[in-house]
């Protein structure tokens, strides 16, 4: 079991990184990575929601299967995620205003982040158990956190020093930079601890 969990984690963080290998969550990855601090907050918020969603949706899926409503998965999941985000937002605003101030503005963006729905769908597709789902949620989020942190570091550097041709400014150079990072991450392909 432990080896399975380790291999899930390794795969989610490095080998099949949500950004550089699975293309899940590209919008916030490109949109909120101009500054390191905000990128870090976004990454943490996504990790948190991914973990929570994995756990809750595991139960929801169990229920749907019982009720023979498995075809309603997509609809159910997106509703669960949306209300979960709402709930987290309310909870944070009440209990931890400081945390809310730093993470709050990212939460609504997360509803439409395909990394969250993606991790839930992948959990179902791989028929992971509860523990596996949660671990996959956490590590998938950490993979996203790693990706967005590295990317924002590089982007900050480019912001200060690079002189990009006009037509490549903005999204194109960000995409090409992400491509080069994906190239570097290919070094991890096939990484197996056992």
């Amino acid at each position, binding site marked *: 079991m432990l080896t399975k969990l380790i291999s899930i984690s390794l795969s989610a963080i490095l080998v099949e990184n949500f950004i550089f290998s699975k*293309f899940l969550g590209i*919008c916030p990855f490109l949109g909120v990575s101009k500054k390191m601090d905000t990128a870090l907050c976004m990454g943490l918020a996504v990790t948190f929601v991914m973990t929570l969603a994995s756990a809750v949706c595991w139960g929801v899926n169990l229920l749907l299967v019982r009720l023979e409503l498995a075809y309603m998965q997509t609809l159910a999941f997106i509703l669960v995620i949306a209300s979960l985000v709402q709930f987290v937002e309310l909870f944070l605003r009440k209990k931890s205003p400081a945390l809310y101030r730093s993470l709050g503005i990212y939460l609504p963006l997360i509803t439409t982040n395909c990394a969250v729905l993606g991790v839930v769908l992948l959990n179902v597709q791989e028929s992971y158990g509860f523990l596996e789902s949660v671990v996959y949620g956490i590590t998938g989020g950490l993979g996203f956190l790693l990706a967005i942190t590295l990317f924002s570091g590089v982007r900050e550097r480019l912001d200060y020093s690079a002189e990009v041709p006009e*037509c490549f400014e903005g999204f194109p150079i960000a995409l090409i930079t992400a491509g080069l990072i994906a190239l570097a991450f*290919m070094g991890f392909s096939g990484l197996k601890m056992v």
Partner: protein
Amino acid sequence: MNPGKIFKDGLLTNNPVLVQLLGMCSTMAITTSLFNGLGMGLSVTVILCCCNVCISLLRKLIPSTVRIAVYVVIIAGFVTIVDLLLQAFLPALSESLGVFIPLIVVNCIIIGRAEAFASRHSVGEALLDGLAQGLGYTAVLVIMSVVRELLGSGSFGAGVFNGGKGWQLFPAGYACSYLTLPFGGFMTLGCLIALVQFLRSKKGEAEK
């Protein structure tokens, strides 16, 4: 609003991917072959048309406070329908697109058009807009997948033409296989958007 302008908007001047920069995840993820690109593009187009029509019909009834939630439910409904249809009739496509079919729910193009267009226009216009934006999206997917398939594996139209075999234009050994990997997705889309920005700035200069 005239249909010509709606189509020009969707395909060129306000292309969802190249200009509005929406729906990047699926654009880069599944464009490894023409088969995938075309399949994904048409699925999105169908869903987009249905959602636009539906939302345009209901636009007077939906209270604005909960409109986003209602849109999401409508979209998720249609996505589920398409997903099930694909599983039943085109299992190969469903298999190779994987989670990216259900993920159309969170594709910003659809919710974006619902909010920006369908909720403010008549049914006919909304249908046309859905078609135009969908085809604009499909066009980008087709371009990306043709480039990546050709340079990345040396073939063209595998799964679509020539009885499903496509044509092998040069031996796969000479092809740049990394273009079919995530690296290639980022690079190809980056270059494509750069090309569009270049053309737009040229056009802007010419207009001046």
